[in-house]
């Protein structure tokens, strides 16, 4: 057996001897396992519920009776953001961003919570998820287990006889690192279990493996930090104080400071303010319910000229349907432009936040973790874009039915003539134009690329700490 392995075994023996450390190991292990099980059950149940709700919404739309197509434009449709498989490990924005979006004509609504219980995780006492436990709690366990690794030997006077047996400082550090690293690996077992579960639910194995590797790197980083400060500082109280300070600064304070800085540095108007700012533009685009709106004069002239007729009543298409189509197109362009502006602001905030990843490995890990899981801001934006594409597609499909399946004369008389009203009800089979919606995670390569910058920050931290430890250990003296 090598000296490093002997030292690692001796370290484990010391932990076994210390009831406090044994209890800490057991409590953290049970806590992680419990969080993993609860999170898996909660996210799986959410996924099943939202998939069922999506089906129910589609069925409700397509089984509507014969009616005027514009009534279906306002009847609207729901889409649900089903959590990706790795959300069992890192639900990311799932709990704080809406999961359901109501799609209807002339509007882009904000996402809402699919069900009341879905919002339970938003509060300060929400259910902790495994990623958060790994980011915040497991480093504390590593600090508890490893802070005295060198200081204990120094204080007990055993460092000198250890080194005097011919053990090199590097071997001593390697032994301590193996002991602490093994504890970190043992703590990763629930994460590995969740990764396997995610793969069973369709996650790409490479991404699941990368997620586990990311957390192995993060915990490895804490192992190095614990040993580095342990080698540098003389007393265990100093080491413990310095490590807790480092944890507080990098895991708690910096991420919150970074978020505050991002919000202050990139002011974002928000959905409601953006909607109010849009009002004038929308007024100029014309009211699609009013064919006499001057905003559609050019459309009228163009259609009359195109078909060589004098009156809209003589057009081979329903002018009202054409107005609804063009109005939706103009309005959607304005709404999309505003939405892209808002998303750009959110991305800019996110980029500001990500810059702090170089200062906080916890932040770097969180960003990379959400990106790999597909539960980050990019996923939310993709959901909004995909939902909007579906909204525009079915609203315009209905507007086309309005323009081509209904006579203009019936359309303008339907509020006063019951027969005309009956004739403007189109066959319910038209509602099948609604495309089925499923929100899938982004491609593995895209998620990997999204995680790469934060992953690079983490790797830089690992490298810096490894070099620092090597430097400190080379100078380790009794």
């Amino acid at each position, binding site marked *: 057996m090598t000296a490093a392995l002997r030292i690692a075994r*001796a370290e484990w*023996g010391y932990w076994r001897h210390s009831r406090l450390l044994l209890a800490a190991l057991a409590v953290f292990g049970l806590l992680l396992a419990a969080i993993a099980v609860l999170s898996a059950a909660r996210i799986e149940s959410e996924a099943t519920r939202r998939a069922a709700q999506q089906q129910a919404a589609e069925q409700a739309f397509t089984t509507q009776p014969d009616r005027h197509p514009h009534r279906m434009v306002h009847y609207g449709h729901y889409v649900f953001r089903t959590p990706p498989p790795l959300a069992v490990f890192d639900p990311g924005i799932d709990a704080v961003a809406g999961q359901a979006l109501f799609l209807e004509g002339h509007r882009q609504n904000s996402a809402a919570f699919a069900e009341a219980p879905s919002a339970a995780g938003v509060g300060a006492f929400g259910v902790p998820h495994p990623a958060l436990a790994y980011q915040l709690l497991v480093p504390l366990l590593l600090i508890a287990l490893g802070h005295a690794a060198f200081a204990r030997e120094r204080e007990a006077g055993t460092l000198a006889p250890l080194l005097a*047996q011919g053990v090199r400082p590097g071997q001593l550090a390697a032994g301590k690192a193996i002991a602490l690293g093994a504890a970190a690996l043992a703590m990763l077992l629930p994460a590995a279990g969740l990764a396997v579960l995610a793969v069973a639910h369709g996650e790409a194995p490479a991404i699941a493996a990368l997620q586990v590797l990311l957390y192995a790197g993060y915990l490895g980083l804490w192992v190095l930090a614990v040993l580095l400060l342990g080698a540098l500082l003389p007393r265990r109280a100093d080491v413990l104080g310095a490590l807790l300070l480092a944890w507080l600064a990098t895991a708690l304070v910096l991420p919150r400071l970074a978020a505050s800085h991002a919000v202050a540095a990139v002011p974002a108007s928000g959905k409601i303010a953006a909607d109010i700012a849009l009002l004038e533009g929308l007024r100029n685009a014309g009211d699609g319910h009013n064919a006499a709106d001057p905003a559609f004069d050019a459309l009228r002239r163009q259609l009359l000229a195109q078909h060589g007729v004098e009156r809209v009543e003589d057009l081979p298409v329903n002018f009202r349907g054409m107005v609804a189509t063009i109005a939706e197109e103009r309005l959607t362009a304005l709404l999309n432009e505003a939405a892209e502006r808002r998303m750009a602001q959110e991305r800019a905030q996110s980029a500001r936040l990500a810059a702090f990843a170089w200062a906080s490995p916890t932040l770097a890990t969180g960003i990379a973790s959400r990106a790999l899981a597909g539960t980050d801001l990019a996923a939310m934006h993709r959901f909004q874009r995909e939902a909007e594409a579906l909204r525009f597609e079915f609203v315009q499909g209905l507007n086309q039915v309005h323009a081509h399946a209904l006579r203009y004369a019936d359309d303008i008389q339907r509020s006063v003539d019951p027969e005309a009203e009956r004739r403007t009800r189109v066959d319910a089979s038209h509602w099948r134009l609604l495309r089925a919606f499923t929100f899938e995670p982004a491609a593995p390569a895209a998620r990997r690329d999204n995680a790469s910058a934060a992953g690079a920050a983490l790797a830089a931290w690992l490298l810096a700490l490894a070099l620092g430890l090597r430097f400190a250990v080379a100078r380790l003296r009794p």
Partner: protein
Amino acid sequence: MAPALEADALTIVRGGQPALRGVSFAVRPGEVHALLGGNGAGKSTTLLAFLGFLAPAQGSVRVEGADVGADPAHARRRIAYLPENAALYGHLDAYENLGYFLGLAGLRAGRGAIDAALDRVALAAAARTRRLEAYSKGMRQKVAIALALLRETPILLLDEPTSGLDPVAIDEFNRLLRELAGAGRSVLMVTHDVYGACQVADRIGLLRDGALVGRFEATPGARIDTEAVHAAFVARETA
């Protein structure tokens, strides 16, 4: 033949202050050499320099002729070191402590060899399977001495080896040291104990404020004169 240990104009600086100032001495093979001195005289610093834990600011330290700074691993292979206060692991018993340290030194010793070493230091058999946290200081010291014996190195560095031992155990320890020296092993011990040093040492160096200020040597058939050493020690310390 090269001396087992040799310090040549050795100067060590610790925390910006000189801990040793131009100290020169040598320990011959088979010799028991004691360094006497008060607190802060530089006794333990000297031992740490021979182990390569402290680099000389000036001068050199050599083990069996090899420069320690150039090859500290060689020095540590040739030396068994008994630190002050017999630093061992309280949560392990005597067998586990000895097994662990010997393993780290790349040695294997069976239960029989360990028992033989513990017999030589007179550690009661019933105590050997008890954790060291329940040991008295003297018992821990015996385990540490047993480790030094089991290493079977040609050189022993002992830091206050009789501290905590009762008079009977001190006598036994001194006999053991003479026996080891008789078998050709070289011993450098640092101590406050003038009487003990005179009982066992072939030569004594007197350290004060990091400088070697007195030397005494036993003559054939006679030990070093305790009164003379004591007088020099007290005079130096109160000067």
